[in-house]
C-alpha cells in the first residue's frame, strides 16, 4: 500500500542555502580529504562527490553555521575519501553477509552503562561504524538515506548500524561490563 504525501521545497532558497554550505565548508572538507588521500586532484574529486551526495539529500540540513552541519560535512567527506582509497588499494570495505557473532544487542545494554564509558567506547569504534550510528541516531537519516549518502546498499546501511551496536557491546564487555 503506497502512502503518497507531498513535500514541496523552495528551489531557489535551497540553492542559496547550499551555496552558503559550499562556501563555508569546502576548505575544511578539502583538508579532511587531503589528510586521507594526500593528492590534491583526488581530494577535489572527493569534495565534489561529497557535495553531490549532500545536495541529493539536502532536505534534512538545518542551519548552515552550526557544529552539527559542520561535523556532518566532515563525516560525509571522510567516508567518500576512505571509499576512494579502499577502491584504489583493492581493499574495499565489504559488508560480509554471514558472521559468527549473530546477536543484535538489546537497547537495555546501553541504558545500563555510564554515559562516560559509553562515549569512550563509541570513540573506539571503527569510523565506518561510528559514522553510521551518528547518521542514524543523531542526524535522523533513514537507512535509505544513509545508503544514498554513503553510496552503499540499504542492506549494508542496516548491517553497519547493527554491527556497530554489536561491536559497541563487545567493547563494553571488555571494559568489564556484563549485561545479565
Amino acid at each position: 500500500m503506497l502512502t503518497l504525501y507531498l513535500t514541496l521545497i523552495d528551489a531557489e532558497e535551497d540553492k542559496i542555502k547550499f551555496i552558503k554550505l559550499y562556501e563555508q565548508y569546502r576548505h575544511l572538507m578539502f583538508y579532511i580529504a587531503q589528510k586521507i588521500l594526500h593528492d590534491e586532484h583526488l581530494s577535489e574529486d572527493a569534495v565534489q562527490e561529497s557535495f553531490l551526495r549532500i545536495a541529493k539529500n539536502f532536505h534534512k540540513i538545518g542551519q548552515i553555521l552550526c557544529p552539527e552541519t559542520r561535523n556532518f560535512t566532515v563525516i560525509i567527506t571522510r567516508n567518500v575519501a576512505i571509499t576512494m582509497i579502499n577502491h584504489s588499494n583493492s581493499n574495499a570495505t565489504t559488508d560480509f553477509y554471514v558472521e559468527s557473532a549473530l546477536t543484535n544487542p538489546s537497547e537495555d545494554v546501553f541504558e545500563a552503562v555510564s554515559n562516560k564509558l559509553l562515549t569512550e567506547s563509541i570513540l573506539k569504534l571503527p569510523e565506518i561504524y561510528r559514522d553510521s550510528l551518528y547518521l542514524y541516531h543523531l542526524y535522523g537519516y533513514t537507512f535509505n538515506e544513509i545508503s544514498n549518502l554513503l553510496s552503499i546498499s540499504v542492506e549494508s546501511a542496516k548491517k553497519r548500524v547493527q554491527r556497530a551496536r554489536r561491536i559497541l557491546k563487545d567493547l563494553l564487555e571488555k571494559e568489564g561490563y556484563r549485561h545479565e
Partner: protein
Amino acid sequence: MNKNLDISLKCALEKEFSWINDFENPYAGYAFSSQFKSNMESIIPRAGFTYVSIGNKRIRKALLAALIALLAIAITGCAFTVHYVVEWNEKQNDAQGTLDVSFELSGESPSAPRDMFLPSTPQGYVITDQYSDDFSYTITYSNPQGHEILCSISNDIENMSISLDNEGASFEKTTINGQKGYAYSKDGINALFWADSIYFYELQGNCEMDTLLTMAGSMAGI
C-alpha cells in the same frame, strides 16, 4: 529510542570534532581548479530540485508528474496489471572473494498478496531478541548449548544486496518453499537465503542446517 545511547553519541560527536573549533586550516586559501568549479556549478542546482516522497523513496516532481500521467492513461483506457518476480543478479567479485547479489522485480505477479509467516521456534531454543522497523523484522533464537539463530525478513527487495564470502565456503543454489534461494556454510555457520515477490528471507546460525531447513519449511504458509 535509547536515551543514553543518543546522549553518548552526541558527546562522542562533539569530542571527536572539537579540534575543528580552534583549527587553522592550512588549505584555507587553497584555489580549487577550474574543473572543480565547473563541476560544482552543475551540482549546486541539485540542492534545489523539487522532490516528492512516496513511501520511503524520493523522486523528482517532474518524474512523478510523468508517472501520474501514465497511470491515468492506464486506468482510463488500458488493462493494467502488475507483473513481478524476483531476479537475482549475481556477480563474482574476485577482488573480495565474494559473490555479490542484487535483486530486481519483474515478470508474473502472485495471485494474491502474501502474508509474512514467521518461523516456528526450533525445539530447545527460545527467542532472545526481536527487532522491527519499516523495512525488516529480525528475531534471534538461542539455546542452552550456546547456539544462536538469526531470522531476518525484509520487504525492501529492490534496494537490497548481499555479499557472500564464498572462498572456502560450501555454497549451493537451491529451492526453498518453491522459491529460488541459496544454502551456505562456512566455519560452522549455516545460512539459508531466499525471496518471494514481497519479502527477502534469511536464516543463519551456528546450528545444524536441518534446523534451518525445518524453520524455513514452517514459513511456507498455508
